[in-house]
């Protein structure tokens, strides 16, 4: 199977830059996968988990990302997100604390602006926790 170049750039590091065979991400209306020779496209990526497989490997690499943009060119996929982390890098306690903080803030009276921010941070915290949980299940 053919591969393509995948570049995942987070705002504090280049998360991944290399060959990839298949790339799955949470899109606007559900999960989407990109294979080699995909048509040029621009789309958005939601908070959640991405998976990609290097050519010749059977194991999927997983990462938790925040929202961002994806641009597909001729066999070159650019992913721009605020943050990207491997599940094993995630600090579970920090994510848990963030989730609780966001929940608490959502219960209080907030302006629309604060509401958006709390909602987004809750989504991120939940995605992180889900990633950690799944990692635990895989290892069992």
């Amino acid at each position, binding site marked *: 199977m053919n591969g393509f170049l995948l570049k995942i750039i*987070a705002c504090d590091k280049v998360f991944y830059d290399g060959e990839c065979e298949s790339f799955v991400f949470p899109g606007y209306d559900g999960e989407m996968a990109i294979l080699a020779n995909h048509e040029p496209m621009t*789309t958005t990526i939601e908070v959640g988990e991405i998976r990609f497989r290097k050519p010749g490997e059977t194991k999927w690499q997983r990462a938790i990302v925040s929202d961002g*943009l994806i641009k597909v060119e001729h066999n070159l996929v650019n992913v721009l997100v605020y943050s990207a982390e491997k599940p094993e890098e995630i600090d579970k306690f920090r994510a848990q604390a963030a989730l609780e903080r966001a929940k608490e803030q959502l219960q209080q009276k907030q302006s629309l602006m604060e509401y958006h921010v709390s909602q987004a941070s809750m989504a991120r915290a939940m995605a992180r926790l889900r990633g950690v949980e799944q990692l635990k299940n895989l290892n069992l």
Partner: protein
Amino acid sequence: MANAREIQNRIDSIRDTMKITRAMYMMSSMKLRKAKNKLENTEPYFTSLKEQIKDILYHYPDMQHLYFDNRNKDMMETVKKKGFVIITGDKGMAGAYNLNVLKKARELIDQAEDYRLFVVGELGRQFFRSQGYPVEEKFVYSANNPSIHRARMMTEYIIDLYQKEELDEVYIILTRMVNSLSEEAEIHRLLPLQTHKFLEEEMLEKIRNEEGVIDQNEARKLHDDWYLIYPSPTEVLEKLVYNYVTGFFYGALVEASACEENARMLAMQSATNNAETMLHDLSIEYNRVRQAAITQEITEVIGGAKALKKKKQKQER
């Protein structure tokens, strides 16, 4: 000439000041290293974000939208409501760093008719408040330790106002590092985005060959890229703008904080150097005064002894 004690006092006080400047130098050099590291890490994101935006905008269908600068309604307006985001430091003692930003900002503000000020950093906020400019009271963010969270909050604030059309144009004034020795205050227009027509000209400019003729093949290559925007241009645009503004704010905060620490480090270094030369001069003066005092004392003692001797000799006679 001052006496020895006065000079000694002066030397002591300079030495104390030097201790402070030296400590501040060390601290800011450490912070600079951290900030530079952060800047380096965010560089690929920042540059590819800009590239991507440019590319997407270039391929964007010709449409009129709130975020673009081609709306008929906007063109009719004569007075633009401008928003200025000004990034300054939280503290002074950083050479001309804050001054440069504030000077540039003031020039811009004095030209504008209808504006709102969003100041990042305590120093800038105090400056504008004391000068009687209306500063947005709720927009309180520090310039220290930039985080993506802060950039997000700032974006929400600005975009919210922009969507309510309380702002027509948003500018950001920040300091950019040219190289490790010089930095420059810059103005950027953040919103509305430049449209496709403008970018197209820029792109064509790039592929124009030496005689100023557009290479038809290259031009065709730029045009025939067929592009899918999923799920819809408006959806993507919404996200794009949030991403762009947040990314820009984050990059600006990181770069500005690196510049601030750099400026502070240089300022503190020159302060320490100045203190050293002053100490050098003063110690020479001190030694001279001390020497003069000793010489005088010796002369007095000798003079006294001589007088006594003469008296004795007279009595003996």
